[in-house]
């Protein structure tokens, strides 16, 4: 149960958002609210000001020349329904659990800004080579997804700054891909995710692991490694493992190798299938 009274603001454009969050008081930005409201209910977060982004025009997917623009408040359902959603991201959205409530309320930007290691979004955005567009009173700055996730539950966002837009290079969205997600059971958060999008020259050269470490881990490959080599390399790169009641660090590290292998295998099989 939420205990404290707070000021509720619902800005209707980006400038108003900047004004609303520029304050000395503790602010909670709400996109879909599936994390924040829960945290407030458990007294883990006690903001004085709540800024609801739902009227700020921050949702939707559109294509501009060589990039796809994704509003941070785009829900998983909207990602599934929008025509311009990168196929890889549509696949990710289709596997979000929590039922219709979470798919209709939870947003890609909310998940990214929360930076909870087992979530799908951080790894997915790094896989897509996304750029995060951040805005504050000082203007806009762009941060690569790889640099956005600093630690578990920590991002490059500064006080008074919010995520305004997510940009995905279009070239990366048209190629063969695989997304492997391992969960204990339906009700469990992801334990390890592995995303792989084929490179321009048609090889599996980059796998991104989510869930195993505090931030997404990029595994760069030459493209001709054996599966055992891929698994070993992946495991060796998990330097800051994540651990919780569902799976310990050892298990996650091991499974990261297994999932990386499966993602690469799936991409290689599709490439071979196309060549045939």
């Amino acid at each position, binding site marked *: *149960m939420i*205990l404290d009274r707070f000021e509720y603001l619902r800005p209707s454009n980006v400038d108003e958002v900047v004004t609303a969050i520029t304050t000395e008081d503790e602010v909670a930005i709400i996109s879909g609210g599936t994390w924040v409201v829960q945290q407030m209910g458990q007294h883990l977060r006690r903001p004085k000001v709540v800024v609801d982004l739902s009227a700020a025009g921050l949702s939707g997917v559109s294509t501009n020349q060589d990039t796809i623009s994704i509003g941070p408040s785009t829900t998983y359902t909207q990602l599934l329904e929008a025509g311009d959603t990168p196929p890889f991201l549509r696949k990710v959205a289709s596997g979000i659990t929590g039922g219709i409530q979470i798919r209709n309320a939870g947003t890609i930007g909310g998940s990214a800004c929360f930076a909870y290691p087992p979530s799908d979004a951080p790894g997915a955005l790094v896989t897509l080579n996304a750029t995060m567009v951040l805005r504050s009173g000082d203007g806009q700055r762009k941060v690569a997804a790889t640099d956005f996730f600093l630690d578990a539950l920590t991002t490059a966002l500064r006080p008074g700054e919010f995520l305004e837009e997510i940009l995905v290079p279009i070239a990366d969205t048209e190629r063969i891909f695989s997304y492997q997600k391992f969960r*204990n059971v339906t*009700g469990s958060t992801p334990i390890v995710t592995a995303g792989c999008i084929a490179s321009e020259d048609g090889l599996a050269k980059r796998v991104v692991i989510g869930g195993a470490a505090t931030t997404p881990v990029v595994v760069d490959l030459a493209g001709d490694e054996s599966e055992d080599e891929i698994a070993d390399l992946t495991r060796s790169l998990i330097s800051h493992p994540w651990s919780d009641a*569902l799976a310990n660090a050892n*298990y996650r590290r091991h*499974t990261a190798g*297994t999932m990386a292998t499966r993602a690469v295998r799936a991409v290689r099989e599709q490439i071979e299938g196309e060549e045939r």
Partner: protein
Amino acid sequence: MVYIDDIRLPNMHFAGILRSPHPHARIVSIDLTRARRAEGVEFALTGAEAAEHTDPIPHFISPLAFGGKSTDVRCLALGKVVYAGEPVAAVVADSRQNAEAAIELIDVEYEPLPFVIDGDEALAADAPRLYEDWDDNVVIQIPFGGGDPAAAFADAEHVIEDELQIQRYSTQPIEPRGYIADWDKSARSYTFYGASQNPHPLKWVLSRALRVKESQVRVIAPAVGGAFGLKMHGHPEESLVCLLSRLSGKPVKWIEDRSETLLIGAREQTHRFKVGFNSQGKISALKDHFVANVGALGAPPGWGMAFLTGMSIPTGYKIENVDVLVTVATTNKSPWNAARGYGKEATNLVMERIIDLVARSLDMDPVEVRRRNLIESHEFPYKTTGGLNIDSGDYHAALDKAVEMIGLDDVRAEQMRLLQEGRHLGVGFAFELTPESGDIPGTLVGGFDTSTVKMSPSGEVTVLTGVTTPGGGNDTSILQIVVDELGVTMADASILQGDTLTTPYGFGNYSGRSMVTGGNAAYLAACDIRVKLVEVASRILETDNTDVELGGGFARRISDPSRSIPIADVAYTIYTLAFATATGVEPPLESTRTYLPGNIQQTPDADGRINIYPTYSNAVHVAIVEVDIETGKVDLQRYGVVHDCGTIINPRFVEGQMEGAIAMGVGAALMEHSIHDPETGVLTTNGFKSYLMPRASDLPMIETMHQVTPSPYTALGLKGAGEAGIGGAQAAVSNAVHNALAPLDITIRKMPLSPGTVLHAIKYREKELKK
């Protein structure tokens, strides 16, 4: 349907309960000053103040009655806390929000003490002790068994010794606990609305703890949204909410948070066993010494589960030399409450793992090992070494049906084929014996129950019964029995349960007893009324009373069905023509009867054994799984069960019970686990994102087949159908996983079989094989 949280009384206030963050600590001081001043707060209370007004909560099953040790359990901790989550202080405020905000303003100074959360460690001589007046942490040690185990082991051709750790896990009804207490100052009485399984015994408990007469307490248990044992009483919040109402002068509501439901534990046991058998797979000797970690001793009946785990060994197997020792250990985890299966699920799991271990060591078909050891149908009633007198069954027929149902030969062929591809399919069987409808001597766990059936002058039927429904449909099934007997329709009948002011004294629901006791009692009462209806109908229809049948709302001549009269008219005649047509038929149309099943033996026999169960349902479960040996993940692909609960009143409800229990058993086998942080002693699995339970998509369709072997000891031949399924499913799935891993020759000694545990076992084994 009305659940507790739907009830709103005028001027209702809300309780906030402060719980200990420490697993073991002395309470140095509690300062309520800030909390008392907080917005909306009416009243605040410490444990010391509560103790001035209350007595300890009576234990549902006192260990003292069985020669064990006990301790005073109070509604708020007094002097020290023995588990993280123990209630320490409470407030009453005008909203839940204000109550929760106020408890944050209570200042408590604790002096943390060393704590122990592991059952084996708690038994060490130098372990921190929970109760200073005890000389160890042992609640009770109870032996069971018979024959000459030592000699039988000496003679055995083969002996296996092994271990199985069953995790702590619990039950999670959709509706959490919730209570509302309303103290009426002028009548000096409490009305207590509670999600309770046992309103009448709870009334007694509240009267003892609150120092009032039973007549000053009325308990109303409205619809209960699932119970599973968790809503049996002894919880501190029950009497606490009453006390808060009396001292604050307000009706007080408390609704449990899910994180609080998850505190209540059950089932953690470590079994160390030894089995002796010959080359034909016939088992001659069994030893099982196990430790149950029951957490701190609570007043609910949780600890008794361990007692019944021991008593139920060796289930339906004919093993005559048995040595069982149950050690019940207290630790600084939160207390247990009863959990569906009530300990017998553990017995079934352990026995079924033992059978599969025997089969594997002899390279024999596990089905065949079961066949060679199960009690045969002509041997009933069969008295086990634990004292259980098993009523009836045809275990071999059930086993054959399960083998056929699953198409075992085809499954095994598929298994071989997939293994060539490096895939690990496994099939596991489990026989399950579920003693039901128990009676524990000297406690208010009664083996009988009482129902009243009434018919009004307009022919309406009302049933009042001492058994309650946790939402499983016993209300409908009991009505069905009555309606069938009286020849009326369901539309003319209703049932009342759960209100101590209106229903006959009864024990509520547990132990698959509702139909056996309340159902049979209603049947007897309905028979009494039927006799009167038939007598008067025969006079109206001018025929002999053997020529009258009741059905569809009418009484009619059997010899000439065109001569009929509405049953309502017969009832009206009995009430209005008592001195004419109905003369000699005593009004009103009302009967209260109690059903005491046969076979219960409260007085110990020559060997000191008692039989606390009248009837024994049984089942054979079979599960097919595939294990991903790269991740350790178990995929449950098929599930079949052949179930025998004697006579079936309503197959839909029986199947519903079975399916729900199997889902619980699958959860127990693969995922459900209450974990405490060893550093802090605090429960970490405090929500459904960390305490995992199976969802529909984790389960295959459950294929059910019924076999009916009526019980000779109950009136309608009913056995119970509420508890069976958990141990059977846990065992079948576990055996299937081991069967899938048989090529690697792996035994996993720790439940649940989560991906982490399975993968660890595989990796460990691979390392061993390399050496």
